[in-house]
């Protein structure tokens, strides 16, 4: 039986992703917000928005804390209650989750949820340091384990235990680059081969440059409304029918099995139960491929295949656009790019396009239900969101 939607997406926008020299985070948000305003059939949707919730990871990149009131000011609001939420790479989904709570509680009729990160002001070493701050200072950081390193530990063990190969990892990158080629907003629209990926330089063995998501500047936003009033703003509402949120131990040393990320499964179960559907009922997926191994483990945790067989699934092409579990049509974090705080919202933006049939050459045919999986830190914070196009 269909439950009432938790909230409805009535509009959405996304900036061009890339190395956006010459613009600041707030200006990237303006770019995304202008698109969202232009998509609304109510020209005064701005006046209906009564709260702004912003996902943003690090004040280090622009040396700017206290961003929420600055962002809403720059978006042209006066006296809009605004708040920043931070959950590392899942900051965007955390903002969405808070937006869902704001609407579903009945406190607000219309909410703006957005995410942004402007990362390319800093050097690679500085970005490495900043990202690393999302892992536990008392454990991972102090050992010299970088953020890539955390996922490299998972990859080494997965390869040893299940026979997953470096080629399997490369295939994830190849697929996501192929999809991004058809996404004009992607950071990199460049087809790559398995050989390109395998011969790229090592970052944290066994992970190479092409196993890693991009350091990207970008912003995305959604306008949420109570389901009952959604049609005032759009003729094609996208309903949020499931929202799962889970946490794991703070350090990877506490995780029983380094080849698993159990929080994904827990968050997915919650979201799918709310939506009252099974994973096989979902037509299109946006997954958190911060590193290629993370997408392979996500296949297993979400139940696309058995534990240990994620590598086989990519070999068989089952997660291609025309496969049984089309994953990351946007190009994913890998090729669309990973502006940390924006990612969770940008995943939903892609599903919004897919479910409205607006995704152009990367469209998954006839997609009606979509699922986004977004992760923060070394697998500590998990959000899974299920969307459905309203009939």
């Amino acid at each position: 039986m269909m439950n009432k939607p938790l909230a409805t997406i009535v509009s959405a926008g996304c900036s061009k992703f890339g190395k956006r020299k010459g613009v600041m985070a707030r200006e990237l948000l303006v770019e995304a917000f202008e698109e969202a305003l232009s998509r609304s059939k109510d020209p005064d949707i701005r006046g209906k928005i009564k709260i702004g919730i912003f996902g943003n990871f690090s004040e280090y990149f622009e040396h700017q804390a206290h961003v929420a009131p600055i962002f809403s000011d720059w978006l042209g609001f006066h006296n809009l209650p605004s708040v920043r939420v931070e959950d590392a790479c899942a900051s965007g989904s955390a903002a969405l989750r808070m937006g869902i709570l704001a609407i579903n509680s009945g406190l607000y009729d219309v909410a703006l949820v957005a995410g942004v990160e402007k990362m390319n002001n800093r050097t690679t070493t500085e970005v490495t340091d900043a990202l690393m701050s999302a892992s536990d200072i008392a454990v991972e950081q102090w050992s010299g384990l970088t953020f890539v390193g955390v996922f490299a530990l998972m990859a080494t063990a997965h390869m040893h235990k299940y026979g997953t190969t470096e080629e399997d990892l490369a295939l994830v990158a190849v697929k996501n680059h192929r999809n991004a080629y058809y996404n004009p907003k992607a950071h990199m629209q460049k087809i790559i081969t398995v050989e390109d990926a395998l011969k790229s330089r090592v970052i944290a063995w066994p992970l190479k440059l092409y196993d890693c998501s991009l350091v990207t500047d970008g912003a995305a936003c959604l306008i949420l409304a109570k389901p009952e009033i959604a049609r005032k703003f759009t003729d094609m509402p996208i309903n949020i029918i499931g929202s799962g949120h889970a946490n794991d131990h703070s350090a990877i040393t506490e995780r029983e099995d380094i080849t698993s990320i159990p929080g994904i499964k827990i968050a997915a179960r919650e979201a799918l139960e709310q939506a009252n559907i099974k994973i096989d009922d979902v037509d299109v997926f946006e997954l958190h491929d911060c590193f290629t191994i993370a997408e392979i483990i996500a296949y297993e945790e979400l139940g696309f295949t058995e534990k240990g067989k994620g590598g086989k699934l990519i070999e068989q092409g089952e997660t291609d656009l025309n496969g049984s579990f089309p994953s990351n049509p946007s190009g994913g974090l890998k090729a669309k790019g990973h502006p940390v705080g924006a990612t969770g919202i940008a995943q939903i933006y892609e599903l919004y396009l897919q479910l409205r049939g607006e995704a152009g050459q990367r469209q998954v045919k006839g997609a009606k239900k979509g699922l986004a999986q977004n992760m923060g830190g070394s697998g500590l914070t998990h959000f899974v969101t299920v969307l459905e196009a309203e009939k």
Partner: protein
Amino acid sequence: MSEEITIENFYSKAKSGKLFASQCIDCGKLSLPPRKICPVCYSTKATWRELGNEGIIESFTIIHVPPKRFEHEVPYGVCLIELNEGIKVLARTTMLEKLKIGQKVKLKIIDAQRNEWPDWPYFTIE
């Protein structure tokens, strides 16, 4: 052993060359770094328990792009070690030939010789 169960106390004990975990008095669960509230049974009664230095490598990576603090050490390995007592630690090493899953290793503690916070020691392997 009367010191309070804190991360700072864990690292200052480690500085003297000995590795201590916290152990839940009620269920026996060991924790590294030590913590007061047991993550299994939620008891708040914990004590210090000295650990040996032997374990096996459960996984490893070789870091080529480091954070600033470890720039001078690249390439270096970081391994996830399961100690004989059944809990895990991370250790950094430049002896890359030792890095093999299932390899038996001995944990070694070295003073980081730092004058700012955190002045915690580092874990490596012998």
